């Protein structure tokens, strides 16, 4: 229990740190960002200085001549109350824009992550059992290639070959916009059809990392005495693979969960931009090219919160799977 609380505290602290970074990055770093922005608006859009200044202050929730500490507190409370600032491109609330994109990204990533994790684990345990064979070295090579290929390049190639050169799959959008969104079969199949290539890009570039991690973890477990003991007891091979090898080998993989999810979220900026898929990634990509800072920061914050929460979930799952965490302590000597 205390362990969960500790993880929770670290999670909250991480989010707090990220908020603080985004706040101070803009306000305290050299080059006086606010003045720069005012200058940018003046030159780019031909505003007068006062006009530009007011626009910038409004966009970033800045009250002029207010002590920085007070601004900071206000910023924090603003965030908690859902006031994440306003987007400069659309003049809409940042949180509103992001929350529109979140479900699409969450859908894309969670399905891709689940599938690649599952493929990786099965492949990894298979390679571990067949280690040293030709099949193992072939699959390891494939996994290394998967691990090494940048997802944006694969996404681009898939887009180029399977959507543009041979238009088998749609090249843009998360669903056919002529279909009314709803729980109709038409809509759902359209969503799946549109998400196929982006998911493929994620899965093909991330299963390899899991597979290699699982392979080495499973090889380590296969060398453990309890696996040989299980074989000696005449347990069925399936049971040994699942309860003895699989379960113990999966445990260390949970530690790399956050890193991998963060990596995939990073990739979403590319994938969603290329496929014009209306998730957070595309929003951030657009915000970046428009220099829409409130939106960029909001997006970063939202991604961080998602990653931190998913990580907390992974930690809890880990606690459930590993009794050494759940019940610590030794009985007797």
């Amino acid at each position: 229990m205390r362990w969960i609380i500790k993880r929770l505290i670290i999670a909250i602290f991480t989010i707090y740190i990220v908020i603080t970074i985004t706040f101070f990055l803009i306000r305290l770093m050299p080059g006086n960002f606010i003045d720069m922005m005012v200058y940018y608006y003046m030159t780019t859009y031909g505003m007068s200085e006062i006009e530009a200044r007011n626009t910038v202050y409004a966009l970033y929730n800045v009250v002029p001549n207010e002590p920085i500490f007070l601004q900071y507190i206000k910023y924090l409370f603003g965030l908690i109350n859902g006031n994440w600032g306003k987007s400069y491109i659309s003049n809409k609330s940042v949180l509103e824009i992001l929350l529109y994109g979140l479900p699409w990204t969450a859908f894309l990533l969670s399905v891709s992550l689940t599938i690649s994790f599952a493929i990786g684990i099965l492949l990894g345990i298979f390679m571990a059992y067949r280690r040293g064979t030709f099949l193992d070295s072939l699959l390891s090579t494939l996994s290394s290639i998967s691990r090494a290929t940048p997802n944006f390049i694969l996404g681009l190639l898939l887009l180029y070959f399977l959507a543009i050169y041979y238009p088998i799959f749609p090249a843009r959008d998360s669903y056919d916009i002529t279909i009314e969104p709803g729980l109709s079969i038409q809509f759902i199949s359209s969503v799946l059809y549109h998400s196929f290539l982006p998911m493929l890009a994620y899965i093909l570039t991330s299963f390899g990392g899991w597979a290699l991690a699982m392979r080495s973890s499973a090889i380590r477990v296969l060398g453990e005495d309890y696996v040989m003991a299980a074989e000696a007891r005449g347990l069925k091979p399936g049971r040994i693979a699942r309860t003895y090898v699989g379960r113990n080998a999966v445990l260390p993989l949970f530690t790399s969960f956050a890193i991998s999810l963060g990596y995939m979220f990073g990739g979403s900026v590319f994938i969603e931009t290329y496929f014009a898929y209306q998730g957070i990634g595309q929003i951030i990509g657009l915000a970046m090219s428009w220099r829409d800072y409130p939106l960029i920061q909001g997006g970063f914050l939202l991604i961080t919160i998602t990653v931190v929460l998913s990580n907390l979930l992974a930690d809890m799952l880990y606690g459930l799977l590993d009794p050494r965490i759940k019940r610590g302590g030794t009985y007797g000597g």
Partner: protein
Amino acid sequence: MVDRLRTLEKILSEHIYIPLKILAKDKRALFGLFMLIAYILISLIGPMIIPLDLTPNLEEKYLPPSWKHPLGTDFAGRDILAQLVHGGRDVLTAAFAAGIVTVGIGTVVGIIAGYMGGKIDTIITAVIDIFLTIPGFPLLIVIAAWLLQSGIPITILTIAFVLSITSWAGLARAVRAQTLSIKNEEFIEVDKCLGLSKLYIIFYEILPNLMPYIAMNFMLSSVSAIYSYTGLMALGLIPLTPGNWGAMINMAQAYVGTITGAGATYILAPSFAIILLQISLVFLANGIDKIFNPRLREW
């Protein structure tokens, strides 16, 4: 003179022949090593042989591969191979610089946390945990956006530094764990009894055991640096460097020729240049333990 030659022979055998012999057992790592060397050589020597001419020559645009243009030409009739060769230096410098900075920060922080222990360790571990959870690439975008606006020039070194901010924590954690376990080994206790200094213990006892991690992480940080650097450039989120493979991808996307298929090599060439480099680094990283492990050295 003879003595010097003998030393040279010893160094060659110790640092080149034996590692290669060991690496030869792992075909993939050997492939990775040779490819990496090839990339470095091409980036160093290539620009001297193949000149880069960026003046547009619209009569020659979207030419298919030929003897004159082995990889064809781009939308402005410029040789693709020349751009590819000239861009390598930029990518590799950024990658290795990021690798060095990452490894430097990660190793120092990890050793301090692991060796000192106590409160310092608790604090550093918490920082490591936080940095591991913060999604690196999105943070990179925020920092890049801020850099663009703040007037700080974006050079390869700033990029390397920014890339390392998001990737040192993984190595620091591994180094810390390793340091902690070595610290309690009996040979360290014996060293302490013999009165050998902390610095001796860190440099001569702990560091050699960390070398595989350090070398492996150097490769892997380079991999993620290449990913971020070329990726950001491919999306046009940071200023383009002419010839940089990411920049080539960016340009290729922007022009219709690649969609019609006439300039396919313009998008394929840099893509495969990046993929192949990444694969070589990953292969080498996976095989690196073999080079450093004395158990495998003494056949």
